[in-house]
């Protein structure tokens, strides 16, 4: 279950250099429970790189990331975060239910049961459908259902609105608002402008 206690995510003078190009330098941010960090910028400006550094997939070329004041490695960070990236991490030969059960096995149970989560992302009744039969938008919503069934505070979302229609976008915005109201926090990249009321949104433009 999500706790109401405050968590914080802090980036300290982060730099990222890729193929001789400085993507960003001395980048700093601080995020606490209930807040959203929106990363903006052109393609290739380092948005995804920053998310992958957050996830620990990449080393920053300089700087540190702190979770609740501790270095990520020495904290509960990985038990309290969830990531939805370009690749949805879903097996197309498995059913919707099998995919979610796998995510659950790798993490702890969160706020919603699998069925509640499927209902929330408008996939109720799809339990035994093979993922290869789903549309791109449905797959995206399935990967978002993963955020609801596992225990987490921080969501890291890379272009969550891709391949979603208006309803789908509105759905994510609702989910994000709820998550923040419950003391969660979100770091995301997006080309779309997000319309969120009652949520404290910080913006960083990387261009």
């Amino acid at each position: 279950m999500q706790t109401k206690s405050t968590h914080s995510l802090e980036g300290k003078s982060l730099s990222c250099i890729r193929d001789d190009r400085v993507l960003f330098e001395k980048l700093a941010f601080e995020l606490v429970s209930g807040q959203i960090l929106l990363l903006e910028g052109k393609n290739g400006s380092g948005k995804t790189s920053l998310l992958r550094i957050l996830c620990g997939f990449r080393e920053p070329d300089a700087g540190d990331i702190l979770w609740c004041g501790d270095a990520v490695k020495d904290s509960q960070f990985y038990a309290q975060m969830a990531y939805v990236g370009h690749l949805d991490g879903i097996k197309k030969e498995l059913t919707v239910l099998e995919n979610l059960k796998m995510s659950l096995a790798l993490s702890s149970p969160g706020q919603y049961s699998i069925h509640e989560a499927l209902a929330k992302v408008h996939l109720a009744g799809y339990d035994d459908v093979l993922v290869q039969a789903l549309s791109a938008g449905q797959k995206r919503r399935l990967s978002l259902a993963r955020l609801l069934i596992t225990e987490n505070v921080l969501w890291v979302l890379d272009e969550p609105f891709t391949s979603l229609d208006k309803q789908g976008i509105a759905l994510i915005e609702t989910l994000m608002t709820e998550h923040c109201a419950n003391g969660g926090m979100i770091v995301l990249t997006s080309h779309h402008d997000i319309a969120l009321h009652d949520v404290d949104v910080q913006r960083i433009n990387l261009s």
Partner: protein
Amino acid sequence: MFLIPDPVVRFFHRMASPPHFYSFTERLMPWLVVIFLLLTAAGLYGGLYLAPADYQQGDSYRIIYIHVPSAWMSLFIYMVMAVAGGIGLVWRIKLAEIVAISSAPVGASFTFIALVTGSLWGKPMWGTWWVWDARLTSELILLFLYLGVIGLYGAIDDKRTASRAVAILALVGVVNIPIIHYSVEWWNTLHQGPTVTKMDKPSIHVSMLIPLLLMAISFKFYYLIAMLQRARTELLLRERNAQWVKNMISESK
């Protein structure tokens, strides 16, 4: 760390900084070359001129002055590569990564030389260029391990990632080398037993042993020279955007 005296720690700290490493090795290089040349001259003079011919093998045994030190170096450099790679992996020290990858081609060359000279030596002894003798076979597998390291490094575009891959592979190799060596030894015990490592009762004459040891030390210096030259080039390539490199280039203009 507390076991290591303070000046040593400070020395390594300074050496881990690229500009210091670059200028220090530049000053060091002429000395290394002079020592290498002196040792090689002395070793070859002792080995090819002063040492007596072998009563069984005649003069053809003299190839050991190249073969044996090369074979030693092939293993030694793999160890250095793995240790440097491991240090780079754990403490993220850029120079350790560079030393590890710069060692690989030098080690592969020594392995190759050991194989070729071993086969040349084998021709008069066994009457054929290649026999599946345990040590030659081990050496051949070691060459494959080196080529794997070099190939992997070349295949990965991002050189920091490539360094980590190479370090993991070299560490895996170091764990496996004794097992491979033992298995090959077990598979075939045709070669003459080790003659030099029996320090208590050396079975080769002193006049042959001294040049051999001289050559062994001279090869270590050659390795240092070749590895450092490669490391300096690699360092410049990787740090081409760093201020110290830009300063150096503008000064030399």
